[in-house]
């Protein structure tokens, strides 16, 4: 524990990032005790109330308590990000290992698909997919939509990492000592890649959230769900800015900024951990 604290003191980014995320978690958890999340549904409270003791974040035009919306919506947005991010990195890792370890045609195909996939503009594909799905999108479906492209980048970057790792001496020794391919991957490569994978994951989560909020702001998200992006959609639809209902967009904006800042600093911190050369040695 003390080692951890000491490490945090050296890796400020990681400290700042995790603190921000922790802050959000604390907010959501205590929020669940303080406020009735059912009030995140329309018609629950008096509409358009500015912040007060009763409604600290105010209420929106359709009678949602914005505090409840934030308490209910923040985890939903994070859920989209994490489902998509984890799926993306998991698929990406498997493909990357297969490609980088075995090389040959498997590598050619996987790298080819990932490279071509990355040239197609992501948001465009996501919009087409989101439009193509019939019936209202649920939060989980939304996550799957975003995940459909979330594996491309991890595949490419992890593949590059594995390629450099497999040239290291200890892999060579393991191979000469007769270890099987999968065993080398699990026991030799994986542990060394973990910090890098963690950074990739956080990155993927961040991109997934970005993509999901983008879709939601365009009105292509789960209309029913009180996610942060949908809240912004309603803000925009109701012209809250020009009508002076500042509290309506203040809360989601601040939380989204916190989410991205938190994730960003965690990535930077993990990068620093995984790649100490970046440490401020200069």
């Amino acid at each position, binding site marked *: 524990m003390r080692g951890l604290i000491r490490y945090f003191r050296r890796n400020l980014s990681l400290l700042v990032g995790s603190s921000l995320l922790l802050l959000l978690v604390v907010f959501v958890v205590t929020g669940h005790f303080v406020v009735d999340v059912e009030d995140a549904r*329309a*018609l629950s409270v008096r509409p358009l109330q500015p912040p007060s003791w009763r409604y600290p974040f105010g209420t929106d035009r359709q009678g949602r308590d914005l505090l409840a919306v934030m308490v209910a919506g923040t985890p939903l947005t994070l859920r989209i990000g994490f489902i998509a991010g984890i799926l993306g990195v998991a698929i990406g890792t498997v493909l990357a290992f297969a490609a980088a370890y075995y090389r040959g045609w498997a590598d050619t195909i996987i790298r080819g698909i990932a490279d071509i996939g990355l040239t197609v503009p992501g948001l465009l594909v996501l919009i087409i997919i989101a*439009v193509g799905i019939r019936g209202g999108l649920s939060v989980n479906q939304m996550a799957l939509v975003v995940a459909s492209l979330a594996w491309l980048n991890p595949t490419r970057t992890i593949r590059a990492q594995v390629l450099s790792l497999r040239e290291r001496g200890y892999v060579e020794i393991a191979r000469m000592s007769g270890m099987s391919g999968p065993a080398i991957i699990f026991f030799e490569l994986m542990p060394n890649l973990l910090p890098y994978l963690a950074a990739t994951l956080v990155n993927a989560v961040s991109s997934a959230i970005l993509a999901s909020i983008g879709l939601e702001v365009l009105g292509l998200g789960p*209309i029913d769900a009180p996610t942060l992006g949908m809240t912004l959609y309603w803000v925009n639809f109701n012209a809250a800015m020009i009508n002076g209902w500042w509290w309506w967009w203040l809360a989601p904006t601040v939380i989204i900024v916190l989410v991205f800042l938190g994730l960003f600093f965690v990535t930077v911190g993990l990068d620093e951990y995984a790649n100490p050369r970046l440490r401020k040695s200069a």
Partner: protein
Amino acid sequence: MAQDSKTATHPMPSRRALLKASVLAGTAIALPWQAPEGGAHAQPAAPPRNRTMILSWSGREGRWVDFELWNPYSIGANHQNGPNLIYEPLAYYSAFADKTYMWLAESYKFAPDFKQLTIKTRPGITWSDGAPFSAEDVAFTLNSLRDLGPKVRWGVDVHQAVEKATATDANTVVVDFKIPSPRFFFFMTYKYDIGVYIVPKHIFAGQDFTTFKHFDIAKGWPVTTGPWQVTQATPQQKVFDRRAKWWAAERGLAPLPAVERNIWLPFAGEQQTAQLLITNQLDAGTGMQPATFPTLFRQNPKIITHAGQKSPYGYMDWWPISLYLNNEVKPFDRKEVRWALSNYIDRDQLIDVAYLGACTPSKLPMPQYPPLQPYFDSVKDLLAKHDTNGFDPKKGDALLSGAGFKKDSGGFWADAAGKRVNVDIIGFGGSGPAMGPVLVEMFKRRGIESSLGLPPDFDDRFQKGQYTGSIYGHGGSINEPYATLRLYQGSSIAVPGGHQVNFARWKNAAYDKLVDEMFAVAPDNTRKLVEIFRAAMEIWLPELPDIQLVQNYHRIPMNTTYWKNWPTAENPYVNGAHWHLTFPMVLWNLQPA
């Protein structure tokens, strides 16, 4: 030995030069993007601001995509985006004034069996290129539409009714019908979005109506009879300048408009439009939410609406909004379910939340316009019995229980097999996001499973019947009930061809017969029409094919900084929608402030 491992290859002294050259080339490519795009032709000097009328309407995401399309019959064109200003009709009709203005036509006369129509056009009208307007143009337009049929707008309507149109002399058109068509002249008359645009034969002859653009500013195209000439059209704006001479002004039918220039901007979002109105860069806008109006009035007291500065900030459109239920999908095929859902909707609260109170409920799927009032009156007793605006959850519960539905463990209504009643509502535009969440919540609170979607392909799903619930309006009657009744026809014998506008997919043979009967009744035969209308409502009301919600309001902010005499409740000479075919009437009524 190491020394000669590589010999000196030819150096590349041009590398730096090449770099420089490529940077220069890149800059050269990047720079000319600011060059103006099409439409920058010689223009008359800009008139002063208080002779200029600027409005924002339609377009998509802030740009016009149809700026080259000035043939209103070409497939991508829409009369709402400008052609309504320049192509003149045989006659205008103002529903608010309940008044017809004969225009290119002087008079018309039906044969007693409604199988023939004789139209007299006014002499002495000229097209903007100087060619005389004549009966030939009308006959050419009608015959072309008949031949084109489904390829162009109004083609089907003309094709079904018209046998042939003949110009018997320069000012007389005789139209022979295939079937009795007592509403044909009214159909051709401009009102709201319906009316036949008359095109110049000397330009359109030999052109493919579907692809002809009719756009060449240098040539003076589009050629029309109206007072406006298109002088600029780009994705950013469409500019119409007043011509020096206009036949209608010379005739004393209307004054030469005080507006010298019209600038139409594409709608770029509510906040953007509001800001332009507040800063007087805009004289009229559209698409505003009720909640934005108080902000507008506060920041620019010169802004008014049809209702002044009061709620509902607009006038009642011809397009009452319903919650459509797909009558072909179980359990919505049962009238008990439809009525139960209707009873679960608190319309006062709906209006409160979705429109901040700036709306009114709708009892029947047609607007409560003065000419329609007799028909509303004729079914007062029926409406009392079948209250389409009633909010009575207990009654709703009773209806569902009576029909064999039970609440399941989760507190949701389900059928005997345990399948929940599930209303997945789709919506679009303004009404969907405004009312959708409220309706979903109301249903959920009464134990009806419900969700909302705003699919981009709303029209496709809705019109193909791939929906269970949908928020949508009715484009039907204005002055007599036939058009609205026709919306619910399962099939029609009087008008050949299947009838497909029945979005609710409700079918009733007896009802169909009554509507066919009404088809042949002259639109001014009010007594007969009332009789058939009541009979039809006796079938329709107990069934309630779709759930009546609210009237649609056109909330158009109008800026009196530069222009006055806008159409308002006190001065309702016409409805003020600048996208409707009657907007030229507003333009010649406007006076500089």
